[in-house]
C-alpha cells in the first residue's frame, strides 16, 4: 500500500484505474473524468467509492452537481511549473462547493504544498524524495501571513483581506 500526505503520512486506500482496465468490484477507485462522465452504470456494482482524476486541460463545467458529491478529486501536476491545478482547486471549492478531498498528484515540491493548501488542496501524493523526507521531519515551510483570504474563509464567506494561517 502506498502512502500519501495529509497533515502526516497516511496509508492510501484509493487505487487509480486506467481507462482500459476493468473497474474492480471492491475498493475505492479513481478514474478519469472522461470515464466517470461516460459510465454511471459501470460503477453500480462497485463496493467502494469513486473518485475522479482531473487533467490540467480537463473542463468540468458540466455535471457539476454530481461532481460536487464525490468524495475525492485528484488533480494532476505534470510539472511543478504547470499551475493550472491551483485554479482548478479553487474552482472546485468555491464554485462547485466541493467538500471532499482534493489531492495533488505529480511533480509537487515542498514549497508548493502550502500554496496548494491555500487553494483548497488538502492531500498530496508526493514522489520527490527530498520533499518526502522534509515532510516527515520538519514543519511546512509556508508563510503564515497571507494577503489573500484563504479558501476556507471564502467558504464561510468570511471577508478577510490580510490574514494569518493558524499553524
Amino acid at each position, binding site marked *: 500500500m502506498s502512502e500519501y500526505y495529509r497533515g502526516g503520512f497516511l496509508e492510501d486506500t484509493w487505487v487509480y484505474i486506467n481507462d482500459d482496465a476493468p473497474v474492480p468490484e471492491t475498493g475505492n477507485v479513481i478514474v478519469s473524468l472522461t470515464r466517470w462522465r461516460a459510465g454511471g452504470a459501470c460503477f453500480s456494482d462497485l463496493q467502494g467509492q469513486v473518485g475522479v482524476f482531473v487533467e490540467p486541460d480537463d473542463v468540468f463545467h458540466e455535471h457539476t452537481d454530481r461532481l460536487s458529491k464525490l468524495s475525492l478529486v485528484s488533480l494532476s501536476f505534470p510539472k*511543478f*511549473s*504547470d*499551475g*493550472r491545478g*491551483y*485554479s*482548478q482547486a*479553487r*474552482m472546485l471549492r*468555491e*464554485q462547485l462547493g466541493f467538500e471532499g478531498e482534493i489531492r495533488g498528484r505529480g511533480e509537487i*515540491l515542498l*514549497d*508548493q504544498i502550502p*500554496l*496548494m493548501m*491555500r*487553494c483548497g488542496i488538502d492531500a498530496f501524493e508526493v514522489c*520527490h524524495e*527530498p520533499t518526502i*523526507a*522534509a515532510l516527515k521531519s520538519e514543519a511546512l*515551510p*509556508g*508563510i*503564515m*501571513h*497571507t*494577503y*489573500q*483570504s484563504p479558501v476556507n*474563509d*471564502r467558504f464561510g*464567506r*468570511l*471577508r*478577510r*483581506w*490580510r490574514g494569518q494561517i493558524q499553524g
Partner: protein
Amino acid sequence: MYRYDEFDQAFVEERCRQFRDQVERRLKGDISEDQFKPLRLQNGLYLQLHAYMLRVAVPYGVLSARQLRKLGEIARRFDRGFGHFTTRQNIQFNWIKLEEAPDILDELARVGMHAIQTSGNCIRNTTTDPFAGVAIDEIEDPRVWAEIIRQWSTIHPEFLFLPRKFKIAITGAAEDRAAIAFHDIGIRIVMGKEGRSEFSIYVGGGQGRTPVVASLIRPFLKKEQLLSYLEAILRVYNLHGRRDNLYKSRIKILVKALGIEEFKRQVDEEWEKLDKPSIDLPIEEYERIAAYFEPVNLQAAPIQNEQVTAREKADPAFAAFKRNNVFAHRVPGHVSVAIALKEPGKIPGDASADQMDAVAELAERFGHDEIRVTYSQNLVLPNIALSDLVAVYDGLVAAGLCSANFELISDIIACPGLDYCNLANARAIPIAQDIAKRFGEQKKAEDIGPLRFNISGCINACGHHHSGNIGILGVDKKGTEHYQITLGGSPGDDASIGSILGPSFPAEDLPEAIETIVAIYLEKRENPKESFLATYRRIGKEPFKDALYNPNALNSGGQSDALEEV
C-alpha cells in the same frame, strides 16, 4: 508613501527565512538546480554571465531616502559599488553571490523591501507614472491602486505558476507615462459616467518577439471591483494560456487566438462565478492604504523665483537642465526634478552607491523624503520647492548627475545586453554609449528634440525597442553582433510598434546609420516643433530607408532579414 505595518513586516521577514532555508537546502543538495531555479527566480535571483544577479522590487518605482541609502549600502557591501535601474522601475545588482543573497534580503527587509516576484512566471512589479501624485494632468493618484495590486498579487497562491510572466501597469493621468498599452494588463483611471472615477482595462499588450498593443476589454469598471476582475482575467489566462511554447505563452497570444470578444466573454463568465466579496478589497482596507498617499502638504508659492532666474541667465548648463529636466507640479511654486542616469558615455540606468547616497540626501533635505524610479531608467525627485531648485541642482552637479538630457535622444533606454545577460545576442551598452556621445552636445540634442531611443540586446526586448521612436535590436548574424533598426514606435497614448527598416547593420556601421536617420528627420521636418515621431508618421519610412539602403537609387532594395533571426 506606503509604509510597512506590522503585518507587512512580519510577512517579509517570514519570506526571508523561507528563502534562507531554500538556499540551505540547495547548498546541501536536497534540491536540484532545476527545482531550485523557480524558487530563486521568485526571489529575483538570476544566473547571469559573470555572477548571480539580484533584482530588487521597487514597488511602482517609489523609494524613500532610507530605502535608497540601503540600496547604496548593498551596492557597496555585496556588489561592486553600483546598481542598475530597469524599465520595470526596479533595481538590479549584477555581482551577487548565492551564499550572500539571504543576507541581502534580510538587509532589504529592514527597510521594507524585498525581491519577491521580480522574476519567474508570476505577477511582477506593477509600474506607474513616475509623476504620480504630483502631475498637473492627473485625475487620481494611481499609487493607491498600485499598492493594492502589490498586496493582492504578493504570493497569490493561485498565480505563481502562470504560463509566463505577467506585467500590470496603471496610470491616473491624462497623458500615459506608464506605457500601459504594452502590458499584459493596462489600467487607466478615467472619469466615469456619474462623475466618479472608474477604471478602463486593457489586456494583451506586450513587447518581446511578438509586439502587440493592448486591446480595451472593459471601458468602465467600478474601482472597488478591480481585484475580482483581475482575478477573473488571470484565471482564464492561467487555465488557457499556452504552456507548450515559451514564445506563445504570454496572454497577448491567448487574446489574439480567441479574439478580444471571446476572451472578454470568458472573463465575464468567470467573473460572474467568483465570490467577489471575499476577493475585492474591503472599504476599510482601501481607506487605510489610501491614507498613506495623501498629498504632501505643500504651501503654494510664487511661480517665479529670483535666484532661479538669475542662475538661468548666468549659467547655460543650469538653464538647459531647467528646460529639459524640470517639470510642473500641481502645487504652484513647486517642481518635479528628473535626474537622468544618462550622462553620455556612462552606462544607461546605472547609479553608483555614492550617487544613491547623494540623491537620498537631496530627497531628505529638499524633497519630502521621496524618490521615484522612471520606466526610462532615470530618477525623479517629485516634490521640490522652486526656491530649492538651485541647491538641488548644485547637489546633483556634485554627484555627477546633472545631465540635462531627460527624454532627449541621448536619454537612451538600454538593457544590459551581452555584457551581463545570459540570453543576449549582442551588446547594448557600448552602442548606447557611442550614440549618446555622438549626440552629447546639448544644442544638437535639444535641436533634435524629444526622441525616445531604445536598445535591446535580444528579441526579449527588455530595452523596449519596439516602442522606441528609434529602436535597436541586437541580433546574432553568423556569430557577429548585428543591429536591426526600427522606427516609429511609441510607448505613450498614441502607442505604436516600430517598423523594421531593413537589413541589420554591424556594430561599426550603426552610429553612422543613426546619424543618417537623424539627418533625414532634420531635413524633412516641417518646422523645429515637429517631433521626430510626428515627422516619421507624416512621411513614412521610405525616405529613411532610401537614405540608408539606397542612397543613389529611387527604388528601395534589399529584403529585410528581420524575421530570420527570431
